[in-house]
């Protein structure tokens, strides 16, 4: 496949899948994400099974604040859009725009993570320690696992941006940026279910 791409004319229309290596990265990313889906399913199942076990400690409805969750959701959803815009800039060979949108994604991710840490500290001060109740441990494990994924994604994109800061879009780094965008959408997707199942159902369901 790799030799069938004519690179003399310029950047191919789909640079992330122009080489065999890129195609493998693309497919491998989806295998990974399918595995992640089942892993998150076990954490969601555990949380749903244990969420009423509050052991006379704080309950979801006492702790969760709709405005904070709403702001966090908006930030993460927007970062999904900015990473999509980055991949479009990549396909059009606009390296400056790609970097700009990826940096915006990074900053939105950092803001989200800071809010999540603030939220955990707040809950801890309200008496929800990790071992307070079955609800507490399953909540911290599920939301913390998502937070850990965000942290990992932030490290990933930071390294990509620093390593490729002056390289331009090549057939070697385009699949890497694209794989990150796929990962970031998945993180966003998991958050959609967290805010629905954990927060909204915790407050009103």
């Amino acid at each position: 496949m790799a030799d069938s791409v004519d690179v003399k004319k310029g950047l191919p229309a789909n640079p992330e899948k122009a080489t065999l290596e890129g195609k493998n990265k693309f497919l491998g990313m989806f295998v990974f994400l399918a595995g992640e889906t089942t892993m998150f399913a076990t954490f969601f199942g555990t949380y749903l099974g244990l969420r009423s076990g509050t052991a006379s400690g704080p309950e979801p409805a006492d702790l969760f604040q709709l405005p904070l969750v709403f702001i966090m959701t908006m930030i993460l959803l927007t970062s999904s859009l900015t990473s999509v815009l980055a991949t479009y800039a990549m396909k059009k060979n606009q390296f400056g725009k790609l970097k700009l949108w990826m940096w915006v994604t990074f900053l939105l991710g950092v803001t989200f993570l800071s809010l999540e840490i603030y939220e955990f500290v707040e809950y801890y001060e309200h008496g929800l320690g990790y071992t307070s109740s079955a609800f507490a441990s399953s909540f911290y494990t599920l939301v913390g696992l998502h937070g850990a994924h965000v942290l990992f994604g932030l490290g990933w994109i930071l390294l990509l941006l620093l390593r490729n800061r002056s390289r331009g879009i090549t057939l070697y780094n385009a699949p890497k940026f694209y794989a990150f965008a796929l990962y970031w959408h998945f993180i966003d997707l998991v958050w959609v279910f967290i805010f629905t199942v954990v927060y909204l159902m915790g407050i009103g369901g």
Partner: protein
Amino acid sequence: MAENLNQPFEESAMNKEEKRKLNREQRIQVIAFAFMIGITILAFLAVGAEGIPTIFTTPFILLLALVQLIIQLYYFMHLKDKDHGWPSSFMISGLVLAAPMIVALIMLLGVVKY
């Protein structure tokens, strides 16, 4: 081929038609995003508003989450595109496995509320 993998390109090889298509797709993505924001606000309103019974809220917000799942997978992660047969089958198998796992765990943990 292999030696110029690390070479940036002066310009894009896309012709006008391909560029137009890409721009249109990008516009659709922005609209899909606006739609997602809309249904997110709807989900928060359904929970935040007074006087809406829980029996309605829970299935409603779960349905909205499902719509978001489809938009993210098919538009943002491009599963609707032609060359995404294998990724689609991977993701669908993941979801098919995930659903009974969630149900089984809830039942194993002895929740009788549902």
